[in-house]
């Protein structure tokens, strides 16, 4: 039976209770601990930092090299918010001819254009009758080195 995982390995962003990681006010050093340790400057939660609308946010695995100029590389995990209204200049996941693609959405001189960020790729200008649906707006990309 055909797998129900799409080629993009789109995973729903499962927001579990996050661990608050304290952001310490100074570097970790050996020796006598600073009394300032008790006055933690701030707590950074990646969920809070990356996700604005939890119910409408999904992770999408980027495939290919067409958006390298925007800092999106093959294998990166994109954070996609479906609740946002796309604006010209936004990087979006678009549905073009029933396929999902990551491109910069631009409207220019009354035309809708899907722009890659790589000189090796061609921009796509939407023709009359061609339907573009924005699946979601890419708000950030994440890359794991390790």
């Amino acid at each position, binding site marked *: 039976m*055909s797998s*129900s995982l*799409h080629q993009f390995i789109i995973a*729903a962003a499962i927001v579990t209770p996050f661990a608050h990681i304290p952001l310490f006010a100074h570097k970790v050093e050996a020796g006598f601990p600073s009394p300032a340790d008790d006055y933690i400057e701030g707590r950074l939660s990646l969920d809070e930092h990356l996700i604005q609308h939890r*119910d*409408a946010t999904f992770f999408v695995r980027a495939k290919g090299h067409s958006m390298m100029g925007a800092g999106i590389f093959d294998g990166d995990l994109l954070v996609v918010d*479906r609740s946002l209204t796309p604006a010209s200049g936004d990087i979006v996941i678009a*549905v073009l001819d029933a396929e*999902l693609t990551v491109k910069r959405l631009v409207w220019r001189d009354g035309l809708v254009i899907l722009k890659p960020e790589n000189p090796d790729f061609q921009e796509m200008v939407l023709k009359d009758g061609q339907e573009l649906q924005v699946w979601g707006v890419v708000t950030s990309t994440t890359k794991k080195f390790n």
Partner: protein
Amino acid sequence: MPIALVDCNNFYVSCERAFNPELEGKPVVVLSNNDGCAVARSNEVKALGVKMAEPWFKMEQLAKRHGIIALSSNYALYGDLSARVMSLLSTFSPKQEIYSIDECFLDLDGFDLQSLVAYGQTIRRTIKQYVGIPVCVGIAETKTLAKLANHCAKKRLAGRDGVCDFGRYSDT
């Protein structure tokens, strides 16, 4: 005191379509564990006469003839999308009763009776945009009638564009 019943259309199929636009407009079934029987059918498949819970081995020939796409179930996905839908729906009313994986009642007591249909449309648009799941909304004075109104909306027997408010119809 109006009550709304919000119900997702062909839920498991819609979940699959949300992530694979190629499935739109095509006859799709989702099969139960071990690919035993059809637990969700797209409208195209329903039109071919396939019944709910039809065993896969019985419909395999029909599927081949009509190009029905059969998918193994992905309950982790359906559960997650359901949670999103329910969480979003909870913002539309102070009182929500989740009824099943794809249905929930919303209490509309105190809401402006003239604009319930428009409210229902807002609910539909929001869920479709935020999660990619199409839903229908039935509104009536009781839960049972709201479910009936939802059925009417879904089958286009009454109401408009997936929303049916029985309160808009007179008693006669």
